[in-house]
């Protein structure tokens, strides 16, 4: 399989926090989840991969090309932000169709596409509203729709289902998996829900204190680690595995 | 010499201490008048205050605020607007309009009739709003050449006319003599404008409530001290 994202010896310093020596390869069409304590650097990692920061060392390549060499608008990365980052001056419809308009798609096509995705994400009734009036879950799905509608090659999602109720969440799992399959979209996402990570991802990485300590196949997530901090984080108790 | 004036001053030096006198003066005459006012103040300890502005603003200020004792105007014509407020008038010095060109007189302008020459661009004061513009218009009209002169612009104050010459925007202007005290400006030696010479009047205002200081000051204006100051600044004394 082809390596789509390659992070090598990556370091990033942000005030008192730093990402340390990140190494991560993600293959085409894979889904990878990142787990980790709050403040451990998950968001910063995702943003770094999207090429958000400039003062960093090490290399991040997408499709064997350095991210920073491609202008942002040509990177073809969908990003769902933890705090949504919706455009406050645009209706939900305009938020979702923003990327399509950039691609100069024709109006009919845009309307159809937005309609389809918003039905999929059950937000067709709020298309005319402005982000300021939305509920948390509605904002989150709008942010999802805005990223998904472009069928990006790479989808980076930062806790994309955190504001959803269990039923809606489950629907989303199915949808995202489908998108992953149909559009051959590679997904890297952050979550706090171990169950979610296992359901969705092929592999799961664990971040602790700015280090990406371990990446494992999902099914092996709860097998005991040599790293006690990880065991503790995952709630794997010493005694259970004590021999 | 006017011995009377001197005596009055010496008498007054005690009397006017703590007394007020407020005077409006056309901004063009700031320099000589400032000196005159200072001399007066020095001698009499009178609390004299001179407000400078252009004539139009002074007229408006007098009519509106109805305050002040004396108005020194650029020409008698400027008193018309404040007619009702003037109680008395006294002529001080001549105010002489002249024809001015760039130094060296490159276009060989020798009189107002040369202003009709091709390529001569003239800038004048506004014909209604400025006294100097009125004079210019009248002079050119009397010479029946007003229509033939290429007036490229009119300005609303006298100093702007000078700036026009200094900045090469105009070949000739008609302006007050005292304005033209600048090495880059040459006064054309012509008698064409002699019949339009005005006088600078000092107009006592009806609203004056400082009669004593005003009278003393008016006498002081007749003194040689005052007259010398005027002539030092290029104004000609009345005969």
């Amino acid at each position: 399989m082809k390596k789509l994202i390659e992070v090598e010896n990556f370091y990033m310093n942000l005030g008192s926090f730093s990402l340390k020596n990140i190494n991560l390869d993600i293959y085409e069409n894979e889904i990878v989840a990142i787990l980790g304590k709050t403040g451990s650097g998950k968001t910063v990692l995702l943003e770094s991969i999207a090429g958000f920061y400039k003062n960093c060392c090490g290399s991040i390549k997408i499709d064997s090309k350095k991210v920073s060499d491609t202008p942002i608008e040509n990177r073809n990365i969908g990003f769902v932000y933890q705090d949504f980052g919706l455009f406050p001056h645009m209706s939900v419809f305009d938020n979702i169709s923003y990327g399509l308009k950039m691609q100069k798609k024709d109006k009919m096509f845009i309307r159809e596409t937005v309609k389809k995705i918003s039905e999929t994400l059950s937000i067709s009734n709020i298309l005319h509203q402005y982000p300021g009036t939305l509920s948390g879950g509605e904002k989150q799905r709008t942010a999802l729709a805005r990223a998904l509608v472009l069928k990006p090659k790479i989808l980076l999602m930062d806790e994309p289902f955190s504001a959803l109720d269990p039923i809606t969440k489950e629907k989303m799992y199915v949808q995202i998996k489908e998108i992953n399959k149909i559009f051959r979209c590679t997904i890297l996402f952050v979550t706090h829900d171990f169950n979610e990570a296992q359901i969705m991802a092929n592999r799961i990485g664990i971040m602790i204190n700015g280090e990406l300590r371990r990446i494992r196949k999902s099914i092996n997530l709860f097998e005991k680690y040599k790293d006690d901090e990880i065991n503790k984080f995952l709630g794997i108790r010493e005694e259970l595995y004590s021999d | 010499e006017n011995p009377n004036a001197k005596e009055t001053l010496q008498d007054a030096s005690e009397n006017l201490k703590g007394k007020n006198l407020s005077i409006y003066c056309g901004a063009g005459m700031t320099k000589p008048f400032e000196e005159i006012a200072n001399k007066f103040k020095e001698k009499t300890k009178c609390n004299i205050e001179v407000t400078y502005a252009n004539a139009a603003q002074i007229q408006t200020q007098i009519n509106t605020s109805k305050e002040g004792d004396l108005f020194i105007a650029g020409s008698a014509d400027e008193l018309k607007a404040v007619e009702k407020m003037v109680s008395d008038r006294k002529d001080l010095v001549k105010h002489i309009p002249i024809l001015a060109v760039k130094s060296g007189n490159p276009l060989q302008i020798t009189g107002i009739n040369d202003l009709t020459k091709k390529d001569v661009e003239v800038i004048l004061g506004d014909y209604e709003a400025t006294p100097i513009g009125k004079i210019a218009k009248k002079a050119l009209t009397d010479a029946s050449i007003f229509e033939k002169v290429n007036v490229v612009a009119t300005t609303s104050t006298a100093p702007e006319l000078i700036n026009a010459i200094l900045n090469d925007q105009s070949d000739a202007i008609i302006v007050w003599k005292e304005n033209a005290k600048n090495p880059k400006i040459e006064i054309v030696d012509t008698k064409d404008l002699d019949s339009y010479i005005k006088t600078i009047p000092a107009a006592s205002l009806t609203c004056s409530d400082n009669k004593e200081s005003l009278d003393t000051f008016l006498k002081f204006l007749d003194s040689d001290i005052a007259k010398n100051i005027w002539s030092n600044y290029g104004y000609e004394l009345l005969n």
Partner: protein
Amino acid sequence: MKNKKINLFEVISYIITIMVVIFMSLIVLTILVEGIPYLSNSFASREVQFSIKLSLFTTSISTFICMILAIPTSYILTRESNTLNKYMQIIIELPLCLPYLVLGLSLLILFSSNFGKSLKEMGLKVVYSQLGIIIAQISVNIPYAIRFIRTAFLEVDSRLEFIASTLGASKWIRFLTITIPLSKNAIIGAMILTWSRGLGEFGATLMLVGVTRMKTETLPASIYLNVATGDIGVSMASALILLLISSISLFIANYFTNKNSNRNRMKDVYTK
């Protein structure tokens, strides 16, 4: 206790507001009282009609040009805050403190120099021409406009711009679709200031262009001439016309400036 404090603050604020409004009304009223008797005559005068047209014409153009200049300049000045930009900002804003007389004088000297002469040869006569009026208005207003718009651009969340880029927007498009709409109120504010000050500008124009009747006579210039000839009433009538024009534009501008209450939940909120 606390309740009293609230009231005190509100009450004081209201009193101040009313004082300001009364003061401004008095100014406007003075003009109304003095100007109304002469208004119909003024409207009928060919000279006044000319100056209304000239004022509207020059001010529209200068406002337009100001915006064209101020918006990209503010963009450049806010995108990065390096030392160069800081100095550029200060240079741009320095002329703010200049009396318009001096600004006009500098312009006169500038456009009378060789540079100005070559412009004139190219057919761009600035001094004593209508073009000069526009230039004077621009010079007076550009520092304001830039300060206003720059302040607004500073407040725009750069993350939203980054996000727009990840969605495929080039810098230019993202500027048009994110930065500008989010600064809408300030841009309208800057336009209103530029427009109003352009209408009223006069100090710099007088120095650079003079007043030639029916040629470079804007409304303020006409007002000046009328004051100079002692026709206070007529000049107040012209001022009244300015006020009329201005109030129409303020109505229009305020229509676009208000809070978009349908964009958030706050419209229904107690702020008491």
